[in-house]
């Protein structure tokens, strides 16, 4: 009980005093996971759309593969990205290992299947005749796509939130490809593990609370957008 009270007190203290280091860590978490989410939304929704709206041989296999990717373990992604980005690995010349960019790459790989899988499901959930109806009313192909996106915006926003939630809370990949370097690639999750290892449970607890608050605020924002013009 002491620890919880102490942790809450410390969290409050760190937030109120605007501790520079904690602020930096929080901002980096938001930046890395935010950019990773945006990129995976770009890839996930566009590819998800193509997969959902076209038919091709092996479509079910592709969708199963995406759905499997939704549960991709971050450590596995971390290990693969590390091996590829090693100095003496295939992409070593980019000199990206142990940088925030490497963390973004890993998080994009984690979030993209989540966004894509949920997007495919969202589009397939629309009435199958809707597409024919839109086209028969004289819409162009692009207008049809746009209307479909608008129709499925609620589940799309859910996909974005799931993707963001998946990467902001992940640690396995971030610590491996980012290296938890102070003031450079240290994010809330990796800092929490490190402080726990150092026996600074109060700080670790405070960081967890800040992480929860951050995730809540971002999701609150997304939910506001999602629910803004709810169809009556």
């Amino acid at each position, binding site marked *: 009980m002491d620890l919880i009270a102490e942790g809450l007190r410390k969290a409050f203290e760190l937030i109120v005093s605007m501790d520079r280091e904690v602020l930096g860590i929080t901002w980096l978490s938001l*930046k*890395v996971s935010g*950019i*990773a989410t*945006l*990129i995976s939304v*770009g*890839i996930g*929704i*566009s590819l998800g759309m193509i997969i959902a709206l076209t038919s091709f041989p092996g479509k079910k296999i592709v969708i199963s593969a995406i759905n499997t990717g939704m549960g991709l373990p971050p450590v596995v992604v971390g290990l693969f990205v590390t091996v590829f980005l*090693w*100095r*003496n690995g295939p992409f*070593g010349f980019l*000199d*990206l*290992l*142990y*940088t*925030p*960019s490497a963390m*973004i*790459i890993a998080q*994009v790989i984690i979030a993209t299947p989540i966004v894509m899988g949920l997007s495919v499901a969202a589009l397939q959930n629309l009435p199958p005749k809707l597409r024919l109806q839109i086209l028969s009313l004289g819409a*162009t*192909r*692009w*207008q049809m*796509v*746009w209307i479909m996106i608008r129709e499925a915006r609620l589940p799309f926003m859910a996909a974005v939130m799931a993707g963001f939630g998946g990467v902001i809370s992940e640690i396995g990949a971030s610590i491996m490809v980012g*290296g*938890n*370097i*102070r003031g*450079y*690639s240290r994010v809330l999750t990796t800092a929490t593990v*490190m402080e*726990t*290892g*150092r*026996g600074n*449970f109060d700080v670790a607890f405070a960081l967890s609370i800040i992480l929860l608050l951050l995730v809540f605020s971002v999701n609150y924002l997304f939910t506001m957008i999602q629910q803004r013009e709810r169809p009556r």
Partner: protein
Amino acid sequence: MLFRKSPDFALVLFLILISGALSVTPAQQKKSIILATTTSTEDSGLLDVLIPVFERSSGYIVKTISVGSGQALKMGEKGEADVLLSHSPDAERRLVERGFAINRRVVMHNDFVIVGPSADPAGIRNSGSAAEAFSSIARQKALFYSRSDSSGTHALEMKLWQSAGVNPEGEPWYRQTGLGMGQTLNVTAEKKGYTLSDRGTYLSLKRTLGLDTLFEGDPQLLNIYHVMEVNPARWPGVNHTGAKAFADFMVSKEAQKIIRTFGVEKFGSALFFPDAGRKDMERF
């Protein structure tokens, strides 16, 4: 036209974001050094004090990757790090002999301690040697937590079991955490077991642990840290200038003075003892 009415937002957005992702990394990439080191230097907080001093005076950015000594040395062997700071003398010497690392220099030492619950169920307090303490633990089947992560601490622990003539592998009282020193100490405290720890990490965590130092002082328990540069002849990609600058800094008067005083204020005693240039340490 089609595209004017509904441009492919996703594609445009995607391109912008990719460029955004790449721009997050500061341009001073070339001036960074990768330091592979053991968890004990990071967990004790020593590097948090030393590295900013070095960065200010040299202009390099140090990327500290803190892993077990085993992994740190492996990173050096594969050319994935520029400079190594570790405490696994036998393995370090092998790395130098095989030509992967050069310029191995002693930086500092402290010692290992055997810690455990104050009740001391295995009665190791008055053991004559570390090996004797280990064999008492094995005889009493008292819980022992091993790092088991090929770290320097783990390497010494294996050596001590060997001199005690015990093979703990697979014994129910011998638990392997696979974690860093800090976390292993936490687990040991929670389960009231014994473990081998470097004094630095133990002291920095002591207040939350509730574990006592039960055995110390055996010369076998000396814990020596060396700095080495990854051999640029073996791996031309390494930043050798930066690595050398960092290694030189670690044995400089300035760094040695910081090491001598580190922790005195917070823990009442120093966590590390500076050794740079000491001839009598050469045998390690």
